[in-house]
């Protein structure tokens, strides 16, 4: 799946800060040409792992290979191939947007003309063209986020590491981020996205690695996630008829408590089972007004892991 010269392979990595074990044991693979989601609750070690991939932090143990190179012994090789977008925004306030991109490009050894060309392209790609000559401090949070993404892409990296890229973006920008990432993956780049906006990742990611308390607890492709047991919510008019019908077919349900609307949650093993239930209900003259998966496929996995929530 991951060849010698591309993608990311992490095996048994651990890293602690003093007495705090930020990462205990993470196995992680991100093949080229795919978007890999890194999912986990706050403080589960996502950022620490990304820092190790970006060659900023040395692991205490375990092996890391990024685009075929070891970030600890060959940091320069890794850095030319990796674009990293941190979760904290850092901007040089008084520099213009174009200057920020050109400065960083120059530090990747790009020629001035090459830099300028690439910077213009990226400003178009992240919709910041009209801000090119503006100082970075006038940008809103979402615009700075997009500038940060352009900055990470300036040297056309093979591997892209994005730490919470969607936070602060308006819905339109999220859609654009999604298509940009899909495009990059289609070009054969390795894209890693850490986030906890799971519905977002459902649509972007090809595969997901779940981390919890510094350990990788599960790794699955989105296709696998789609085929697992999922919960569906069902609404009908009136609900009593639905309850009676479900009872008749022996389908167990629970009343969903976290929603404003009154609805039932049912656990179904596959999409075939779901279509059977829907058809049966409709044929049985139950007025079904809503029938949909309760959450995204990844959310389903995330909730089923149940490791950090007690």
């Amino acid at each position, binding site marked *: 799946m991951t060849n010698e010269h591309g993608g990311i392979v992490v095996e048994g990595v651990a890293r602690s800060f003093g007495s705090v074990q930020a990462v205990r044991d993470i196995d992680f693979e991100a093949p080229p040409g795919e978007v890999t989601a890194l999912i986990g609750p706050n403080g589960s070690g996502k950022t620490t792992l990304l820092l190790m991939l970006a060659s900023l932090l040395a692991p205490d143990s375990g092996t890391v290979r990024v685009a075929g190179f070891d970030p600890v012994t060959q940091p320069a090789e890794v850095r030319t191939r990796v674009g990293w977008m941190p979760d904290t925004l850092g901007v040089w306030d008084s520099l213009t947007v174009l200057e920020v991109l050109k400065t960083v490009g120059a530090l*990747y050894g790009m020629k001035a003309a090459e830099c300028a060309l690439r910077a213009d392209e990226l400003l178009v790609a992240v919709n910041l063209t009209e801000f090119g000559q503006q100082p970075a401090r006038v940008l809103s949070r979402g615009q700075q986020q997009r500038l940060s993404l352009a900055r990470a892409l300036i040297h056309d990296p093979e591997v892209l590491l994005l730490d919470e890229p969607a936070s602060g973006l308006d819905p339109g920008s999220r859609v654009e981020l999604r298509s940009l990432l899909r495009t990059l993956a289609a070009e054969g780049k390795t894209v890693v996205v850490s986030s906890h906006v799971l519905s977002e990742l459902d649509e972007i990611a090809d595969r997901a690695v779940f981390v919890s308390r510094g350990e990788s607890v599960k790794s699955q492709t989105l296709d696998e996630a789609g085929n697992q047991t999922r919960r569906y919510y069902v609404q009908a008019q009136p609900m009593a008829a639905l309850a009676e019908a479900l009872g008749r077919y022996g389908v167990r349900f629970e009343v969903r408590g976290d929603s404003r609307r009154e609805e039932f949650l049912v656990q179904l093993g596959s999409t075939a089972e779901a279509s059977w239930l829907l058809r049966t209900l409709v044929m049985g003259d139950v007025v079904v007004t809503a029938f949909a998966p309760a959450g995204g496929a990844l959310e389903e996995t995330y909730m089923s892991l149940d490791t950090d929530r007690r």
Partner: protein
Amino acid sequence: MSTVAEPSTPNPVRTTARLPFHTAVRTVFLLEMKQRLRGKAWYWMLGIWFVVIGFIFVLATGVIGTTDNQGGILFDLVVGFVLFFGLLVAPGLSANAVNGDRAGGTLAILQVTLLTPGQLLAGKWLASWVGSLAFLLLSSPFIFWALALGGVDAREALVSLLMLAVELAVVCAIGVGVSAVAYRPLFSIVSTYMLVALLAIGTLIVYGLSTQLVMEERTMTTSYYTYPDSSVDDMGVPDANAELECVTQTNLSMVPRTEYITWILSANPFVVVADAVPYNLEDYPDPEVPPGALTNGPYYTPGVMETISQGVRASQAGPDDNQTCEESAQLMQPLPQGTPIWPLGLGIQVLLAGALLLLGRRKLTMPAKRLAQGTRIA
């Protein structure tokens, strides 16, 4: 974002994984200078500096307008003040260079590029040095004014300015080094001020205290001219025909052998500058004045920095255990330079700055193995 971010060249950077030193340093330097030139703080500091130096200069011109060597004293004063204020300003310009970026979240962005820690520190240092040289440049009207009054030769002026620039470079290097070692900007600025104070004031204190360690009992011979008792009448007025005679006294006393401890002073920035400057010592009165006679100048009137230079030379010479009558009758004479002490001082300063920069370079080398408590990379 809907448009494709195609690379403009099929294979842009892959060729080299090393950034040429001058490119890297220039990029960091320009990055720093752009931010400084577009901020307001630097201009305010320059403005205040100009007003303060101008005020002191005009005040000093009024006070010492009548003395000999007016140009020399004024020039010396400007050099002394520029050094003094430079020592105050340079840490402010340099001591948050690196950890200020860390606080702003921009350090890690530089660290994931091909920029090496050494290149980063070199660029930051250059930028803060050039920033503080602007203060020197802004003092030039007063420097030229003093030079126009005469009494300062070109060599003295040139070396003074050169040494000022060198001292600013050293302080900036210390500041940048500390800013890379320490995590909090406030802490590093205070630490840099403490280090500068250690050099400027601490050396003096240690020197002063050390005199107690080098006390030695020595036979001191002092001679002076006086009228013989026989020629003085009841009122204490000497007889008109009386001749002065030389009286020599010897006594045992404890004197500090300052020649052993003068090196302590060498690391003082004021000493480094003063000791390096070749003051013109030739136009002063003939030492062979007849005893008791008063001459009509020119008197030897050293300025601030030259006084420091003379003090160091006197300290290097150690106690004079045999003062002759001729010496006692002479006017104050400038001491010629023995062994220059400034190379030692500058060496100590450069060693300190270099050690801090090396330590800072190690701290900035990524991937990081160890991190200080409570710090984040990004």
